[in-house]
Each structure stands twice: as C-alpha cells, then as structure tokens.
C-alpha cells in the first residue's frame, strides 16, 4: 500500500511558479494575440448548427471517395458542397458528412429551398451503389442565427455568474483574476479551433462552457488555499504565499487533471465521430485551464493587490 504512486509526488513541492510569472504572462499574451490573429484572418470552421444549410451523414462501401461524393453533389448546382470523412470503425464501410450551404432566399422561400435541396441531394446520393443515409440535418437561416446568438450569450452569462459567485465568496480581486483566467481559456480555445480548423458546433459551445466550469474549479481550489495561507502566515510576502499555495495544491491539480484527461481520451478515441470534436475541445480545455489556474489566475493576484486582513467572505 505504501507503494501508492502518490508518494512519488512531493508533498512539499517548491517549484518557483511565481518567479516565472512574467515569462508565463508574456507567453499567455502571445497565445492570446496569436489566437485573435488566427480568428480574424483564418476564421472558424463553423459546423452546420451555426452556418446553416443541409448536412447528410452517409455510409458507403470502402471504394467510395471524398472526390466522388463532392463531384456528385457539386453537379446539383446547389452551392459549393463540403465533403469530409467522419471516422470509420468498420474497414468495409466508410462514413462521410456531405454538406450543402444555406440556400438563398429570405424567410419561407429560403426554408423551402433548403427542403428541396435536401431532397435533391438525398436522391442524388442514394444513386451511389451501397450508400446508406444515416442522418440528415437541415438548419434554416433564422435558426442558425439564433443559435450563434444564444451560444455567445450562454458563454457571456456563465462568465458573469462566476464573477459574481467568486466576488461573493472571496474578494473582488480574486474574482477579477479568476474571470481574466477564464477569458484567457475561452480565447485560447477559440484560437485552437482556428488553427486546427476543427468543426465548431453546438457541442463545442457546450465544451467551452464546461472548460469555463472546470478551469474555475481549478482556480477556486488554488484561491481557497491562498486565502487560508494568507490567514495562516501573516508575515510572509504575498508572492511567497501564492507560490506556497500553488505548491500545496499541486499534487491535487496534477491528479485531477490526469483522471479527467484519461476519461476524455477514452471519449476521444472510442466515443464515435459525433463526440470527437467535443472531446478534443475538452482535452485542450483541461490543459489550458490547469495552466491558467497556476500561471494566470494566481499571479494576477499580485497585480490586483489582495487585502490580507480581510474578514469578508470565507467559511
């Protein structure tokens, strides 16, 4: 029993996290700038939910190719088709996503054009031998616009509520630091999706909200320890208290991130094509969230100058 691996992690780690804060903050700033730059220049590969249009998931024999399906759908002259292979578990069968853009026309005209386009595309696709249509999604213009708006609103509302909660439980300095760290995570995740051009859909928004929750969770654990240590060591300089607190919680941070990552990797590898984007976003989010709790949220307290003798909040 004494062989438990946990004993490999030092209980009294003394990693000088705070000393490298300027390097870390500079690195973060670079990542954020790069993310924003990529977002502005390359943009995001929005999925059907946000782009609108028609998307069909088809399963075909092993010989069908992306080009074949693209040529077939392009010949319908319903706009530039997108065809991508979507993971295949069976070597005899291949799965593709075939998408058409939102059809032109305002209101009902556009919605009906989408329906007609879906029928035309499905008829054309079923002419391929051995092809089976496994799912269809049609998102009209109005709905896709609403989904974009609700997605942004959801992330904004979540950030705001966390700000309020941390303010209520700690002091405003903590809440500012925590939310800046969250904004950092959100931007870096958006940047990751710009760079990899992975599909950004409703599930990705769910992932971002979960990342926000997870990263907050991590930050709160560190902050909780900082608050406790500030009371315990009244004379110790703030930078040292921050460093001590990060080190105190380090083995917990590593273990929790590791178990979460283990579960997510299983989801990424086995959970099927539909959950892969979500799992990818979450894996990235856990990494960036853990990083930001240590290197962004905690050092920011040095700049916001927390009050030491506070009697506010606390348990």
């Amino acid at each position: 029993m004494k062989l438990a691996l946990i004993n490999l992690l030092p209980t009294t780690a003394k990693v000088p996290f705070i000393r490298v804060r300027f390097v870390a903050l500079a690195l973060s700033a670079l990542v954020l700038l790069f993310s924003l730059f990529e977002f502005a220049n390359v943009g995001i590969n929005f999925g059907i939910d946000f782009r609108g249009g028609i998307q069909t998931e088809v399963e075909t024999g092993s010989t069908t190719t992306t080009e074949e399906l693209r040529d077939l759908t392009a010949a319908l002259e319903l706009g530039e088709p997108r065809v991508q292979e979507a993971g295949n578990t069976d070597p005899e069968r291949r799965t593709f996503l075939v998408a058409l853009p939102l059809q032109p026309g305002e209101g009902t005209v556009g919605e009906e054009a989408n329906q007609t386009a879906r029928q035309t595309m499905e008829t054309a696709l079923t002419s391929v031998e051995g092809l089976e249509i496994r799912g269809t999604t049609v998102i009209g213009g109005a709905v896709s616009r609403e989904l974009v708006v609700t997605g942004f609103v959801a992330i904004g509302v979540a950030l705001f509520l966390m700000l309020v909660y941390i303010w209520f439980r700690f002091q405003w300095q903590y809440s500012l630091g925590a939310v800046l760290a969250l904004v950092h995570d959100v931007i870096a995740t958006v940047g990751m999706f710009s760079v990899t051009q992975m599909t950004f859909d409703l599930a990705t928004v769910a992932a971002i909200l979960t990342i926000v929750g997870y990263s907050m969770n991590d930050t709160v654990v560190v902050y909780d320890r900082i608050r406790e240590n500030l009371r315990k060591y009244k004379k110790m300089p703030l930078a040292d208290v921050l460093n001590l607190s990060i080190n105190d919680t380090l083995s917990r941070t590593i273990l929790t991130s590791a178990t979460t990552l283990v579960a997510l990797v299983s989801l990424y590898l086995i959970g099927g094509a539909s959950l892969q984007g979500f799992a990818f976003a979450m894996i990235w989010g856990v990494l960036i969230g853990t990083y930001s709790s240590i290197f962004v949220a905690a050092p920011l307290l040095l700049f916001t100058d927390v009050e030491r003798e506070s009697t506010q909040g606390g348990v």
Partner: protein
Amino acid sequence: MLYFGRWKLLTIFLVVLAGILFTVPNLVPEEERYTISEIDGSREPRGIWRFIPSATINLGLDLQGGSHIVFAVDMDEVRTAQMEGLAADARQTLRNEQLLPRSVSLVGDEVVVLMIRPDERQQAFEQLQTLNGPVTTEFGGPSLAQMYEMRLDPDDPSAIRISVTDEQFAAIKTRTLSQAITVIRRRIDGLGTTDPTIARAGEDRVLVQVPGAEDPQEIIDLVGTQAALSFHMVDSTIDPGPNGQARTPPGRTIYPVANTQPIQYLAVETRQLLTGENLTNSNVTTHPNYTGPVVGFRFDTQGALVFGDVTTNNRGRQFAIVLDGEIISAPRINEPILGGSGIIGGGYTYETASQLVILLNAGALPASLTPVEERTVSPSLGHDQIESGKLAIIIGFALVIVFMLAAYGVFGVFSIMALMVNVVLILGSLSGLGMTLTLPGIAGIILTIGMAVDANVLIFERIREEGLKGRTPANAIQAGYEQALAAILDANVTTFIAASVLYLLGAGPVRGFAVTLGVGIITSVFTAFVFSRLLAVLWLRGFKPKQLPI
C-alpha cells in the same frame, strides 16, 4: 465528521438503494419486465416489476433514431388574416347602420376606414367601437387590454384608423399555436407512431419529435400541409384562360386543377359553401365509378342540410372541392345528395388516399407551417452511437479505476466505490426522474467520471498533509474532510453554474449534456463527501490503523 448517527446511516443506505433500484431496469430486457399486449402494444409490468421501478432511461432521438423537426408558423399570414377579418367586420357593421364608407382598406399595420361624408365619421367611429372588447386570455377570461386601438385621423377628417393591439396579437399567436399543436397531434397520431412529442417552441414555433421515423419527408408532408378544404360552385361562364391568368369579376376566383397535365384551371365562386370544419369523418373506400381507391366523407348535420340544398338547387352544375388552393375534385351534380355524404375520387393510390384521410380527419391548420430545423438520425446510427458511448464509458471508467488505485492504494478503493455509487446514482436519477439521455449526455457522464474523483482527491490530499504533520489517522481524516469542504463546495458550485446556463440556453441535444453534468455534480458531492467518508470511517473502525497508507 467521523460520527454517523443512525438516521444518517439509514438515509445514506436509502439513497444508494434507490439509485440501484432505479438503475436495475436498464439492465433487464423489456420482455422480462413487461407483459406486452399483442392487441394494442400496451405494456403491463409483470412479476417483481409490479413492486419495484420498471422504467428505463429515456433515450434521446440521437440515440434511438427518429426525426426532430421544428416548424415555424407563418405569423404574418395570421396577422394579415386577422386584419382582413377586421376590415370585413368593419364594412359589415357600417353597412348595417346605413353608414357607407368610401373604402375600407389595409394600409401597413392598420385598417383605414374612409367615410364618404366627414360628418358621418363620429357616428361611424361610435358604431365601430362595438367591434372592440377585451382580449381573451389563454385561460378564457377577459384581460385588461382591448383588442383594437381605434382613432380618428387628425389629418384626414374622413378617416378612422384601427390597429390590432400587441396584447391581442400575442393572444392570437398563442391561440394559433395551440390550435396548430392540436391539429398536428391528431395528424401524427394518425400515423400510429409511439410517443411523439409535439410542443410549443418559443414565440412562433412548434417542435415535432417522432422517435423511429426514418423519413422526415413523410412528417414534413403531413405537418406542413395546411389542409384547408372548401366547397365552391363552379362558374362555367368564365373562361379561366390558358394559364389561369384571366381577369375575374369580383366574387370569382380561378384555381388550378390538381393532377392535370398541362395544368387546367376552373373559375369558381369565391364564397365557400362549406369548409372542412363541416366534415365529421372521412375514410378510404371504393366506388364503382372509379378504378382506384376514393376518399369518402360525411358532413355534420348543418353541413348535410346545406349540401342537400345546394345539390337540389343546382342540378346539372359542377361544384369544386378546393384543398390548399388546388381543386382536387369537381364533380357534376346529377341528383340531390341528401344523405350528407360524398366521395372525392380520381387518381389516388392507397397511400395518397390515406394521407388525405388523415389530413381531413385531423382538420386544417390555422396557418401554414414551414420546417426551419430538422435533425434526423437513422435507428442504425443511433444504435451505433449508444454502443460506442457505452464502450467509452466502460473504458474511461476502467482507466480511472486503474489510475486511482495506482495513485492512492486503499483510499483509491474508497474513491472507486464512491465513483461506482456515483454512476449508479446518475443512471438512477435519469431513469427515476424521466430525463432524456442524449449522445452529449453520455459525454457528460464520462466527463463526470473523470471530474468526480476531484472531490476525493482534494480530501485525500488534505488527509495526507494532516497525516504528515504527525496527527493520528483518525485525526487526520477528520481534519481532511473538514478542511476540504469549502474548496469542494466552491469548485462544484462554479461547474454547476456552467451546467445550469447550458441547460437554460442550450439547444436540442446539448441540453442532455447539461442534464447529466448537473446531476453528476450533485451526486459526486454526495458520494465524495458522504459516502466515501462513511467508507473511511468504517475502515478506521475495522482496521484501527496506526499509520495512514497515503
């Protein structure tokens, strides 16, 4: 922290037991749990399942296959119809009082009544007030708001302007939606599918979910058809022209005739003799004059009287049956039809005839509906998604178990048992509370498995620290649980906030993720803080260890 009273123990036991009881049905095939009636497919719990919960987790459409379609109700059409009705009522009211308007017309969002003589305007205004009244609320009572806002135009001495108030329009919207939902439900029920969901979605939309449906087009055709049926006399003195573009005198309308190639047209009297509302029952039948199936219909008492009169007085003339702007039948009246029934024949297959029967029996929609969002998953894809989801849960769970055992030894065992109870509680809550599990929901469960150990880790780390300070195991465990509480609560409240926002604002299947994540947070706080603590206490009492194994 280390003492568990009798009641506390009993509560923990009951919670875990309930979790197990509600989870177990998911592991037993349906035939074992229910006697399924061969006549109507209804289910009756059998054997032991009569006494314990027998319901399983509700699977979302992405897991069991089916169609999810959101229809938008054309509210502009509803508004226009409302305004036209208002204009007609205004005209009628004034005519009854011998006050002749120069014109009553729709201008923008208003009905504008122009009087010929400005000195009659005040009197007309007072008469028009009789049309007004309080808005009828959803519950049938009068509300404070008035239906219309009427005013004398200050710039034009002969004009009265009437507009529909926002309250009235909102009430009309609600009424239209609930009528549409009733009609759609009757139509979908006509298909004979199980457990369809038909619900209002937002201001002007209706959500239709049909599990197991593979062809969304069938549902779109069924729901998207307005099925407004009306009977008119044909006016054969008017030549509709080759494209139906001929000018018609007032009170006449030209409609295309269905299933004609090239399309033929007929002019009919705009006045409706009867509408679909006068029908009581339709069915697919045969008739000696037609080769294929025909649709037979029966009028209600009033409809039968009118139809009898019309057919008696117009022998030899043609009448037209118009469905959604198309003449579907135009028979010649050979003899009076007094029995109140008739047929629509010509060119139907059994399929198209039965669809028309479903539509006629369900009644007409109050407005036209357009599909704006559609998600269809075939049952085979749904099945594959469940299988890969299950596998991912099992493997993820196994990896986390290995990891925790390696990291914490005996305390790892506590956290694994807590984790197992956690999963049982999540599945039990989903079954017991009738919540829906979607594919993202499965992702939520896996994520919870990964994150749920966090609370345990926080506690164990505290215990380890306290142990290193030289406390006895009992002392260290006590202190560990006490001190970790604040961090655990704070950390979980924040994740719960994220899950709640996702639930309130999230669309479609993503809501399923918010559900499992939210439920998982509650159960993991319970299992980490109550259940694993109980295990640790039992271990302390049983083994009386001198030293902490972590």
